[in-house]
């Protein structure tokens, strides 16, 4: 990767991090758990990496198997994470 391309990625990293800080500057305690769970689901974005990794050539190679393992785990994280967050948030609805 060229340094210049890396710099741009770092821009993205910095901006996104700053944005993350700003967005969660004052959450009420009731939302701590759902927020944690919801952002945990987002961190399952690594599923995209897992997809790419598991698609790499070479049947039966370690890379491939690791990729598939990652894929299963990441999917659990994503699907489970969103579902459980939603269950939690349903409880907050007005009666």
């Amino acid at each position: 990767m060229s340094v210049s391309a890396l710099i741009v990625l770092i821009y993205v990293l910095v901006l996104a991090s700053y944005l993350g800080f700003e967005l969660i500057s004052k959450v009420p305690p009731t939302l701590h758990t759902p927020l944690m769970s919801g952002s945990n689901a987002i961190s399952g974005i690594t599923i995209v990496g897992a997809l790419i990794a598991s698609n790499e050539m070479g049947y039966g190679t370690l890379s491939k198997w690791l990729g598939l393992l990652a894929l299963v785990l990441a999917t659990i994280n994503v699907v489970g994470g969103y579902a459980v967050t939603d269950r939690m948030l349903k409880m907050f609805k007005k009666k």
Partner: protein
Amino acid sequence: MNIGIQLAYLVASVLFIMGIKYLGKTKDARKGNVLSAVGMLIAIAATLFTLEVFSLIEIGAAILVGAAIGLYYSQKVAMTKIPEMVALFNGFGGLASFSVALSDFFFKNANEATSLDAINLTSILLSVLIGGVTFTGSMVAYLKLDGKVSGQPITFSGQHLLNLILLLAFFAAAVLVFIDPSQEIYLYILVGLALLLGILTVIPIGGADMPVVISLLNSYSGMAACATGFILNNNVLIVAGSLVGASGIILTQIMCKAMNRSLMNVLLGGFGQTVATGGADGPAVVVKEIGVEESAMLFDSASSVIVVPGYGMAVAQAQHVVRELMEQCEKRNIEFRFAIHPVAGRMPGHMNVLLAEANISYDKLIEMDDINEDFANTDLVFVVGANDVVNPAARTNPESPIFGMPILNADKARTVIVSKRSMGKGYAGVENELFGFSNCLMLFGDAKQTITKVVGELKDMA
């Protein structure tokens, strides 16, 4: 890479940002979760689009298996077990990043064509370190929370030193990998060190502090995803990962603050023991505390509120701020009444005097006999510095000095919040089991001060 896919990633990134934003607001939280889920779907779909078709079977199978497991557990788990679940999922996420990093390492190492440059290697090693720590750390947290392992902190002397040494060892090995990436043995050492570090950093922490740890590990898993993004030169991973990383850190900080701890204190593993709450003496009633913000939210979402004032309201001179609370609730069309117990306070009519002073109109004050049946249909009862007059022992415990005294049926309401300073007793000097009831939440602190804060929160919510 295809421009369409890139744009899809951009859309997904924005959806994640909006998702996180909404998750921090009570009334939009659910929408936020849906938005970020849609973002995830878009990212996955776009990625699948770029893939060669031939491997679709395994991928499909892996996704199906993962989805089934995730869905099953998320639906089956009891609501009380959610922290455990989050810990588990989080660990899986970390392990996934960790695996992707390794996979890439092996792939690139095997493929002479794609070289492992310094940036690549750094990213991979960061991903391995953070992913590994997240994985084993989360697992330990899960086991502790679930009670499979004792929630007690496990400490030994030299713990911090050992962690430091392990971290240094990791960096040393990393240098070796840099020097010669084909010596895979160093990588295995790195892997082992990372996993070990995760375990060691979490075992000294007590069960009560686990939520904070999970939040921190959650932030780590975001960072791991971010590192993976650098490995794969993938923006959506970087955006989503750093978003989660940053918001997780802030969230951890907020949670620490709520527990009166500093983040430094947390990061250095200085988590304390479980804080015991309970009565001053005698058999402690186990109570649930509630904070000012949560109280405000309960008011906000109630449709009927009954306030039970007692001597503590008089002591705190909280009558004026209770009127403000009333105004806030009435602005929301919440039915708001006062249940006046005939002997509340220390003088006949004590509550009447105070509430009249606060200019609360007489028709809001309901006598005990007239309101006692309404409690069962009430969303929220707010007990302000009252104690004996809502003590169920008067109904049930013939030994109690207040047995036989008619009481307000506050305990019959859906939720009860009790504002008092401590677990201190009332005039009759007896324990109040109401405070330990499952529908009862304690809002500790001087009534005037805490209610002022609740009112402030309600105003902000409007």
